[in-house]
Structure formats: C-alpha cells, structure tokens
C-alpha cells in the first residue's frame, strides 16, 4: 500500500516485493478440478488473491446452428468478471477488455484441442472471475486447460500461462495488481509446455530487447512450475477418486 508520502517503492532494499516475494517467485497457486456438477468439465483456481471459476460444456449441439462447422467443433469462450470482483463495482455487461480477453484466451487454447474429432458441435468455455488481483487472464488460461482435460476433451497438452514485467527497473515474475498499475511493463505469456510453443504473447509498457528476452525466459520458467501444479491437481482429483471407490467392494465381501 502507498506510504504517507504517496511515493511507493515496489522493491525494498532487501530485494523483496510489496507482498514479500523475490523477483522470480510466484504467488501461491491452488487448483481444484471438477467443482461444477452440471458442467462437463470444470476447474477452480486461486492464484494469490485471484479466484476464478471455469466451466467447460461440450461437445454439444451448436446454437445458433448456422455457426457450426462441418469438419470440426466450434470452440467458444467467454471471459467475464463478476461485478464484485474488483474494488469498484464493475458493470456486468461485457466490456471491450473482456471481449478482447475472451478472444485471446480462445486463440491461445484452440491449437491444443482436437476439434476435428467432434464435427458439428461446439465446445463452450465460461471463465468467471470472482475476485481479481492482476494476472486474471493467465490464471484463466491455466484453469481452462485443466477444465478441458477434466471434460475428457482430447488435448495435446495443458496450456499454461504466466506473466512477467518490469517494476522499479527490475524484471520480475507474476505481477500483482498494484505492480501492474505502478510498474513499467507487463507481459503475459502462454506456452504449450511440451513443445515450448508460445500461444499467447501480449505486452503493455516498454522493455528493451534484453529485458524482453529475460522476461520471456523467466515467464517460461514460471509456466513450467505452474504446469507441475496443474498436473498435481488433476492427479489429486482422479487418483483420490479411484482410491475412494476401490476399497468399498472389499468391505462388502468381508461382511458377506
């Protein structure tokens, strides 16, 4: 928070950021898989103070019908921020920013989905931001790829996203809301971890070429850490489910 002088140091003398993180440290991330009953696949992510719920519906019939494609599935996504997700009430109507994020998220995930397996259908993704604290698009992408896997939709890999930026002249990983606003630059990056392909690269602010390369490097390293969290979350859901089902038949056999 700003001090009394109104001038704020984003990095203190010890090299720590406002929330106590080092320059290349991520905020704590928690992912829950399969949280919605009516959706085919879903995920809930808590990334720092970000709280995002993602639902995946489909493959299902396309409405309106004329949008359907004869050779592949139609992939649609909707990023939406709840009116209570930010400090000042946000109008629930989709803003210019939300339209843009829906588009970039859609284009970032589509290359990993085998849409050609489901012609004439649609796969619909709904990303609902319940609480925002900077980096919601990265958290949204990360959670959506987990939700797509939970829906059973064949995908090439789990897409993972992480931002990096420049604050007080230093390149740092995973900007929070205040660092994004007061800092010099912000760059979200999404990658397909297996191949290292970049599917999203946006930038707000100014980097020199060296800074850009360093920022991209630490973003990719951050993405790989988050990818491990994604796989762990899936494992927790599916292996725990299996373990909780399996012992039951044994008990009934013993009683009989």
């Amino acid at each position, binding site marked *: 928070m700003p001090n009394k002088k109104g001038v704020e140091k984003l990095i203190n003398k010890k090299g720590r950021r406002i929330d106590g993180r080092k320059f290349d440290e991520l905020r704590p991330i928690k992912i829950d898989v399969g949280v919605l009953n009516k959706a*085919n*696949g879903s995920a809930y992510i808590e990334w720092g103070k970000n709280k995002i719920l993602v639902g995946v519906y*489909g*493959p*299902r*019939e396309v409405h309106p*019908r*004329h949008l*359907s494609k*004869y050779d592949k599935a139609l992939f649609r996504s909707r990023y939406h921020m709840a009116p209570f997700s930010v400090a000042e009430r946000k109008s629930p109507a989709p803003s210019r920013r939300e339209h843009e994020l829906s588009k970039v998220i859609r284009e970032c995930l589509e290359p990993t989905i*085998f849409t050609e*397996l*489901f*012609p*004439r*259908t649609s796969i619909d993704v709904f990303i609902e931001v319940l609480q925002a604290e900077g980096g919601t698009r990265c958290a949204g992408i990360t959670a959506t790829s987990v939700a797509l*896997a*939970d*829906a*059973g*939709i*064949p*995908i*090439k*890999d*789990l897409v993972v996203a992480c931002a990096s930026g420049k604050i007080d002249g230093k390149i740092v990983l995973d900007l929070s809301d205040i660092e994004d606003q007061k800092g010099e630059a912000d760059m979200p990056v999404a990658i*397909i*971890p*297996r*191949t290292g392909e970049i599917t999203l690269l946006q930038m707000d602010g100014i980097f020199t070429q060296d800074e850009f390369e360093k920022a991209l490097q630490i973003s990719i390293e951050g993405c790989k850490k988050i990818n491990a969290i994604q*796989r762990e979350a*899936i*494992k927790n859901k*599916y*292996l725990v*489910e*299996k373990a909780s089902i399996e012992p039951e038949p044994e008990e009934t056999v013993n009683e009989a």
Partner: protein
Amino acid sequence: MKNRQSGIFVTPGDKLGVIEEFLPGLGTYVDDGNIYSSTIGHLLIDLFKKKISDNPSTSITPIPKVGDIVVGQVVNIQDKNIVIKISQINTESRSVLTGIMHVSDVSTSYVKTMFNAFKVGDFVRAKVISSTNKEFHLSTKGSNLGVIQAFCSNCGHLLVFQKHRLRCLNCKKIERRKIVLGYEKGLD
C-alpha cells in the same frame, strides 16, 4: 518415460513411447514420431498387439457417425419431416443432439405423411444415413427400426400392440405408427 507400465496415471501431453515400438491407441496422438497422451487416464500397454493406449478416466458425449443406430424422442412433426432428439447412440447414452428424418426415409413402402407414422413424444430407434448440411439425417427403413415406445395422442397412456393394431388400453383408441418388429416386447 520412467517406470512405464500398464495402470500408471497419465495426463495430457505425457510422452508414452515412440511409433516404432507401439501402435497409437485410444486417448493418444502422434507428434514427430512420438506417442503422447491426449486425455486423463491410465496407461494400457498391449504387448501382444503392440498397442499403447490411454484408458480414459473421463467420459465424453458421443457424436453419431453415419451407420450408427440411435434412439431418440420425436420433438416436432411436419407433413414431410420430423425432428428427433437423440438420447442414445449405439449403446452409449448421454447425448443431446438432434436429427431429422424425411418422409421418404420412414419405410420401404410409401408413406404419405409423417402424421401416419409418428406422434410427438414417441421413442424411435433410427439409423444415421447422412450428415450433410450440418444435420444428422435419420432413417427407419427396415424391420428393426421405427417406434419402440408410443403414447396415445388422446390420453397419453402407453400404446400396446394387440391383434395387429396399436391400442390404448385406457381409452380404446387405435393408432398408426411405423413400429419396430417386436414392439410388443417393450423397451429392452
């Protein structure tokens, strides 16, 4: 991949092997000569058939293909067309797609109007004959295809096949349908 054996847990993007050693099976894909998992599941290695697959832990809504037998409910009837809401494909249920059928595909014999063959609410077993124009075109030509469960248009009770006619035991109404062979046995 370390400790590769049947039954281990795999997530999308995990490398399962190379195409020289295995055929890629269900839930896998090939990229640059390597086999990767595409769904959440457990690894299944068939050393006899030399096949590696990912037995999915998740389930997915099936999509009908040409030649599939589907079961659905009639939701709309016009003179020459009906709309069927498909609820089962082959033996897998849990589908929410619609198909259409033209009067010329109802039966091998001449049918003048759809109102002589179906009523709204009937359960129909049909075959997917085409998927052109973004639609699933169905057919009930053949003795094993047609209405498998019909309801009285007067009182809504289940119709029963007796004395070569479809009869409503409640209001004694006699109705016409394109029924399957063995309608009287009921839904199996």
